[in-house]
């Protein structure tokens, strides 16, 4: 049984990378390899930024240089930070209409299916190619309601006060080494503002993509949901395959105002040579709700722990996390829930799959601060392990400084039940189909939370990986 599973499942994670096409380099500007003050000044000058932002970047750089590499988690010693290109600009300006986008870049997006998706479902598309937003559109009625959906650079230019009020307040540059790096060299990302009481019914989407070998992508997104508003932001990531390692280190900051509701969904499908070290955090205010839906399929090493800081009474945080580690991959995913205020609640559901020697981990923190009376937190982790050489880890931490709490955690690790396979096969399914079906069922609680076309993509990705490599 195990032998045949070995053969059938070997496709996951080690199959030919589906988006591994590569376009010729058409960028108009890129910085030299490596990072120092000059490079940071150059980036800032290229973007024509105000003085305070340059100062902020330089502070981030200084902190980055002083801070040691994290002493825990996956081994990052192969990551060569000295030979990365920290900024690449693909074309002169951000385009407003699809026709103005250069053909090669358009081809890439065509392969990803973005325009079709837009016609059908999308409220707005911000697609990030290299380090700048090259294409941005938003449906008119949203614009009329006052919704702002811009590239982060345009956000800084057009709404400097709003930007400055919130930028760096959720993830300060001192947070961790890679947040400091991002603060120094950030480029690209989205700036979203949802005004009071506005409900955005269709998801806002951005597609991130790396094309040149050895570049780091440091997207920075700032999402502000004002009182009583609602929004769903979706991000997908794809990178073509190169022999040298690429590096992605984003920072996502989200402010969820009073009674607001924000959902942030990610499908991370970088090729298997990308280091993906991301800091994602939301500050949630009175009765607000933040939901992270986080799926990690690609990359070489991912370290990503979406977090909710529940700042005021009644705030609620939820994380649905899925990690799929194939051959040579380490998915170090998890969550952080910090309860600062009374009657806050949080819920974490994590699903991880390790296959063909891959390693997936859940690393999480639930912290109840002294003031958080009646806080409730629950964490459930399930792991599926598909081959003898694979590894599955769970490292949750609970820290409680308050008496009136209810905190629970459960985790289990198992392989696919032989009874389940036997049952499905006795109904006429092949072993391969049966296995795929069990895996799909395992991650279903997450998939059903995704917008439809992403759910379809997700199911397709799982299917490709489960079946494509047979024979």
């Amino acid at each position, binding site marked *: 049984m195990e032998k045949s599973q070995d053969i059938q499942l070997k496709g996951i994670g080690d199959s030919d990378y589906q988006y591994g096409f590569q376009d010729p380099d058409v960028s108009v500007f890129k910085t030299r390899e490596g990072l120092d003050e000059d490079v940071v000044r150059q980036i800032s000058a290229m973007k024509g930024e105000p003085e305070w932002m340059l100062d902020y970047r330089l502070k981030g750089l200084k902190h980055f240089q002083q801070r040691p590499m994290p002493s825990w988690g996956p081994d990052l010693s192969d990551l060569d930070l000295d030979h990365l290109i920290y900024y690449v600009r693909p074309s002169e300006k951000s385009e407003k209409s699809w026709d103005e986008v250069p053909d090669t870049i358009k081809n890439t997006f065509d392969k990803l299916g973005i325009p079709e998706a837009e016609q059908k479902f999308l409220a707005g598309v911000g697609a990030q190619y290299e380090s700048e937003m090259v294409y941005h559109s938003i449906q008119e009625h949203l614009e009329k309601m006052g919704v702002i959906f811009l590239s982060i650079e345009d956000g800084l230019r057009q709404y400097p006060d709003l930007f400055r009020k919130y930028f760096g307040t959720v993830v300060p540059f001192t947070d961790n080494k890679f947040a400091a790096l991002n603060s120094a060299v950030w480029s690209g990302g989205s700036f979203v503002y949802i005004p009071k009481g506005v409900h955005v019914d269709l998801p806002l989407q951005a597609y991130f993509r790396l094309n040149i070998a050895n570049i780091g992508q440091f997207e920075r997104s700032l999402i502000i949901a004002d009182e009583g508003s609602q929004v769903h932001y979706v991000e997908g990531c794809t990178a073509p395959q190169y022999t040298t390692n690429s590096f992605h280190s984003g920072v996502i900051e989200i402010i969820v105002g009073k009674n607001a509701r924000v959902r942030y969904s990610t499908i991370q499908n970088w090729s298997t040579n990308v280091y993906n070290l991301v800091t994602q955090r939301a500050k949630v205010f009175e009765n607000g709700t933040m939901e992270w839906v986080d799926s990690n399929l690609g990359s070489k090493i991912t370290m990503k722990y979406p977090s909710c800081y529940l700042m005021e009474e009644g705030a609620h945080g939820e994380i649905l996390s899925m990690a799929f580690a194939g051959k040579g991959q380490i998915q170090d995913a998890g969550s952080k829930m910090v309860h600062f205020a009374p009657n806050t609640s949080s819920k974490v559901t994590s699903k991880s799959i390790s296959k063909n020697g891959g390693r997936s981990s859940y690393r999480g923190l639930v912290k109840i601060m002294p003031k958080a009376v009646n806080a409730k937190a629950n964490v459930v982790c399930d792991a599926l*392990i598909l081959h003898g*050489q*694979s590894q599955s880890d769970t490292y949750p931490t609970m*820290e409680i400084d308050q*008496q009136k709490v*209810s905190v*629970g955690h459960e985790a*289990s690790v198992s*392989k696919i039940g032989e009874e389940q396979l036997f049952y499905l096969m006795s109904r006429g399914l092949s072993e391969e189909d049966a296995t795929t079906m069990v895996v799909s069922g395992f991650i279903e609680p997450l998939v059903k939370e995704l917008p439809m076309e992403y759910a379809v993509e997700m199911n397709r990705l799982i299917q490709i990986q489960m079946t494509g490599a047979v024979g």
Partner: protein
Amino acid sequence: MRGNMDQNSLISFKDSNREKLFNALDSCSQNYSDDRFESIIEFLEQYDTHAVQGAALELKDENEMTLAGRFLWNDGIKGNVLNETAEARGIIFNTLDQIKRESPDIYEKLSDWQSIHQKDGSGRMLSALSKETIVLYIPKYVSASKEFLLDLILSKEGKGAAVQIWVFLEKGAQAVFTLNLRSRDSEADNFFTGLLNVFVGEGAHLILNEVQDFHQKMFSYTRKSVVVAKDGDLQWNICELGSEKSKSYSDLILSGKGSNAVVNGLYFPNRNQSFSIFTRQAHMESNTTSNLYFKGAVSDDARANWEGMIYVDPIAEKSDGYQKNENLMLSPNAHAASKPGLEILTDDVRCSHGTTITEIDPNQIFYLMSRGIPETDAKRLVIQGFFDTVLHKISYEPIRTKLQEKIYRKMD
């Protein structure tokens, strides 16, 4: 019955250094070096060693339960006694020095086992610090139905002790061993470092009980490792009640196919007590099972920190590991942290863990009060019920009763 005579070995220390000693022991948990050992020795003044008369002992514990053997260590003064059947069957409960003199062949066997036994940095440090080793040895296929009690009392002002304890069960042996750590009523600044090494041989069966009930000014640092061989069976009952600061590492190594272990743990810090409890369940062979259940109530300004890990080796197929930690918060200033962990390196396993941190359920209190029970009594009942779920898993009745009493007393 006989009393024994040996040397007194208490350690003097400068009080201000107790904390430093504690931290130094921790900092060397990764690697051992002679330099570090020297630096730890610097915290200590000297070992007192002078001959003293061993006490005459009865084969009874505090609760007048009859024992199979008893070893008393009272501020360094030692005495030991075994019942006749145990002695006739070749059971040994003595210091390693005495065994070296009286039974050189067994001494050799124990030393061999000890030298191949893997120890981490602070384990080596503790064994280097310890001037004496107390050994319980059960020969092949010998089963003792009554308990062996190591009663260790430490309360002499300004003194510390470093003791090693070895428990060795040969193939097919069976025994109940209790390590009782306590103090007399007086409270003085003391510290204790202990190293407990246990081997459960092929098909052997051990019930291992540990009661840490020192006075509340003690600093206690213990490292314990239990290796279970093929088809061996272990029930390990751990109870942490005493000390101002207590740090304990419990390492369970299922090294033989089909070995099986149940670990039951209780902790109940109050006032300014601070407990750190680390457990590890290592499945190194196939078809091994482990089941760990740790429960603690935290009151006043106390701190409890529990950290556990289940490790499953790539060759340990068909393993079943379970880990559960439950905490009851009894005061607004209490602090609890729980950090379970899984590291699974093979696919054919079933491993899970669960942890909870909660306050007393107000509905339960309401229910009991509606039945006419005053609030304070209702709370007591709920806390008793909380601990009883673990206590009921302890199959050796005298120790279950003893722990129950101790916990109930601490609630007052």
